[in-house]
């Protein structure tokens, strides 16, 4: 099945998400769709999957123009979408998820799970996916969940598969296995659209590539014709240097030390098991790992958000295991939280209010029980200038800023004061390239000023670019430690450690 996309445009309020897009999707071929966050990739694919209706333009399938009134139409036309954020019901079983919407039924609308199970097993076998059909989704690792998404699409006998940032949550080894499945599907005659912002993936898997920038197609071609630098320039619109240009670190005294730290969750399950790590002054330490392997809990243990059940946390030689969030904050621990909208800021508050979110009580802004708002506002304005937060006014609601500016606002709040340790969790998630560069520079500057920096990220590239030393976490443990002084850490070895293959390399 071939699809021609002709002149698709889609606008959300003031944002032109897609403009005049032409694209060809062909059977037996992997089309790489490259673009940075917010370039309009997801919008385009949501148009194709019937979730959004385009403002103008045509979708032509095998020579006939079609229009989709909803996802149902697109599915019926043979288009299947695997979303970046899995569209699986966690408390349903694999079979229930796969059949949802196209359920085999008997009399009285009776759900025929046995028939469904047999069908699912058949697809499972023919592509060698090995998915347990009666397991609940929430009990499965993300790599398997992704296969469930593909099963879902194949169960609906899709001929076109759209894969939206499919590798974001996988370890390098899982990525390899996943590419194997993609190739098998392509060889079976399926058309595949592979959406990503990772250049090396395009070079590895795509047969053709289209680059999207600010809602427009800015380049088409065969990947082998381009270098990584060409693709990067097309994607961003200007030459980009992806390596930060790190100078050698001069680590000093240990600032943060964790000794055998363990943490249990409410269900008394271990989330951290005997974690020991050290972060010294003047170095950046990265924590790599697939999301959900204890990184969140690690940050909570360091910042005081969760109390640990065993072990010791030391800061500048002082035992802080039992101190509160605020005490640690005062001691000079800065915390850039992993999800700014969930915990880093209050969207309904002004920029000024957000700038004092976690220090409104200290003597710089408060007098007794009262907050001195005019002082807070002046400080906020100064921080906005210093950290390039682009807002017309500090009285503007923070929710109306762009993702990059929101993140810079959080970074500004955390770094504008005197800090000794920076804990940055997913510091550049969902922000534009310009802001990524700026935030990375700020973190480097922090290191160069002699502070300790701990970066937790599920983007392995970010970890490799910034860190002087790398810890890898898997299922609540540190499985490996790597030296990365001159960016020498072995990507493959890190990948194995992320997957829990225990092989500690001498630092």
């Amino acid at each position, binding site marked *: 099945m071939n699809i021609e996309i002709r002149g698709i445009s889609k606008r959300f309020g003031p944002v032109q998400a897609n403009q005049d897009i032409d694209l060809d999707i062909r059977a037996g071929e992997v089309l790489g769709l490259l673009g940075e966050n917010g370039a309009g990739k997801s919008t385009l694919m949501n148009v194709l999957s019937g979730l959004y209706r385009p403002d103008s333009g045509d979708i032509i399938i095998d020579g006939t123009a079609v229009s989709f009134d909803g996802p149902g139409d697109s599915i019926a036309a043979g288009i299947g979408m695997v979303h970046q954020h899995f569209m699986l019901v966690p408390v349903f079983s694999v079979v229930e998820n796969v059949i949802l919407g196209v359920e085999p039924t008997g009399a009285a609308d009776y759900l025929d799970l046995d028939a469904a199970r047999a069908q699912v097993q058949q697809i499972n076998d023919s592509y060698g996916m090995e998915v347990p059909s009666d397991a609940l989704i929430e009990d499965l690792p993300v790599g398997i969940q992704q296969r469930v998404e593909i099963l879902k699409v194949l169960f609906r006998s899709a001929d076109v598969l759209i894969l939206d940032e499919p590798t974001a949550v996988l370890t390098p080894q899982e990525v390899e296995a996943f590419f194997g499945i993609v190739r098998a599907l392509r060889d079976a005659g399926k058309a595949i659209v592979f959406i990503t912002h990772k250049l090396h993936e395009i070079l590895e898997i795509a047969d053709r590539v289209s680059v999207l920038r600010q809602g427009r197609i800015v380049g088409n071609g065969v990947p082998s014709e381009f270098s990584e630098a060409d693709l990067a320039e097309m994607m961003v619109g200007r030459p980009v240097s992806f390596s930060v240009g790190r100078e050698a670190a001069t680590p000093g005294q240990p600032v943060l030390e964790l000794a055998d730290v363990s943490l249990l969750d409410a269900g008394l399950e271990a989330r951290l098991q005997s974690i020991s790590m050290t972060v010294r002054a003047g170095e950046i330490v990265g924590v790599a790992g697939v999301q959900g392997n204890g990184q969140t809990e690690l940050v909570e243990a360091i910042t*005081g*958000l969760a109390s640990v059940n065993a072990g010791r946390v030391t800061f500048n030689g002082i035992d802080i295991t039992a101190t*509160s*969030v*605020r005490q640690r*904050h005062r001691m000079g621990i800065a*915390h850039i*939280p992993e*999800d700014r909208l*969930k*915990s*880093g*800021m*209050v*969207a*309904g*508050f*002004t920029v000024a*209010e957000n700038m004092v*979110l*976690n220090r*409104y*009580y200290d003597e710089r802004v*408060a007098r007794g*029980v*009262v*907050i001195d*708002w*005019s*002082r807070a*506002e*002046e400080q*906020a*304005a*100064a921080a*906005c*200038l210093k950290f390039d937060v682009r*807002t*017309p*006014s*500090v*009285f*503007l609601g923070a929710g109306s800023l762009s993702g990059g500016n929101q993140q810079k606002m959080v970074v500004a709040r955390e770094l504008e004061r005197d800090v000794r340790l920076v804990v940055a969790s997913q510091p550049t998630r969902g922000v534009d390239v310009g802001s990524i560069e700026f935030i990375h520079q700020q973190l480097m500057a922090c290191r160069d000023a002699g502070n300790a920096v701990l970066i937790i990220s599920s983007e392995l590239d970010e970890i490799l670019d910034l860190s002087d030393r790398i810890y890898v976490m898997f299922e609540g443990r540190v499985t490996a430690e790597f030296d990365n002084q001159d960016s020498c850490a072995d990507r493959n070895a890190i990948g194995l450690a992320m997957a829990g293959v225990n092989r500690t390399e001498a630092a």
Partner: protein
Amino acid sequence: MTRAPSDTAPDAAPDAAPDTAPDTDSRLRALLAPTIATRGDLREVVLIPLLAVFLALVIGALIMMATSVAPATILKSFVAMADGSLGSMNAISETLTASIPLVMAGLGIGLAFRAGLFNIGAEGQMVVGGLATAIAAFSFTGLPMILHLPLALLIGMSVGAVYAAIAGVLRATTGAHEVISTIMLNLISFRLLDYLLRQPYIQKEGRADPISRAVLETAELPRLLTFLDPNLRLHLGLFIMLAAVAIVWWLLFRSKLGFAFRISGENPGAARYAGIRAGLTVVLAMAIAGALAGLAGATQVSGVLGRATPGFTAGIGFDAIAVALLGRSHPVGILLAGLLFGALEAGGRQMQVDAGVSIDMISIIQALIIIFVAAPLLIKRLFPPLFRNRVTAGGGHE
């Protein structure tokens, strides 16, 4: 959010960085310049409540028609409503008197709202607070008014606070949703009131029905307008109410505690991140809400009723939910909404007398107002021309 524009910014800013580029100062000033409230916002804040009231009255009239009230009577009832709420000195006094407990209980609900809690228990908190005030008001004999009255009110406040804090503690420790627990505490308080009013010490001597002894004169809130007409019931609670509005405003928008409440209400994750103790915040917010509702019950007993009787709160605690919603949980908004509802209450009584339409009509109108205020999209769809983004050429200033 209201905040005074910081016009003192340039002077207050210490010239810490003398070597900054010349335009830094002007960019700073631009960032600090007070934003002009967009006309659209103003329109929403003012127009939507007005249209909501209008629509509610229209639908109220339709319901009256449906229950075969003659058109003339409907007209008469609206006239009576206006007359009974604003038409005379007595009407104004009644309106203000009725709004006092509504505003105070509404402030409690609004404050809890800002902290992310839905306190449906204002009615029950009024019951226990009012009853405690009644008991204090007839128990302490021989105290001068200057001591007795504040003491009685304070006891009512404290008991209301403790009663509301039960729901807060349950929420903080077990996660039990405050909506269900406060509703149950309401129902429990009604039974408790019925029981206590029959107890020998509390029940009025020689009475078989549940009614408390009368409040002593030293614990009565003095009436304010008796120099004009001895029948005017407006009492000192008016000033307590205004003070409460100011204090709650200060608490929410100036104090550290209030900021912690607002963070907790807007984004619990951010509150946790900022080191705000969630449990303590919940208990404190509920306790303050309960204190305000308790005070509403207290002023009602010591200023209007003079004793506690079964159902003496008369659903004011539930109407206060509507007041808080209509006032958008802002103290000033709650004051205005409370005055409106006080007027409806006073006008409704007149309506019942003059036109023979049941005062329950007022509850319907109040509920309708809230439905429309809570669904601004609905109003915008019903009156599209008023919300079209046009260039306003003069006029239309509220």
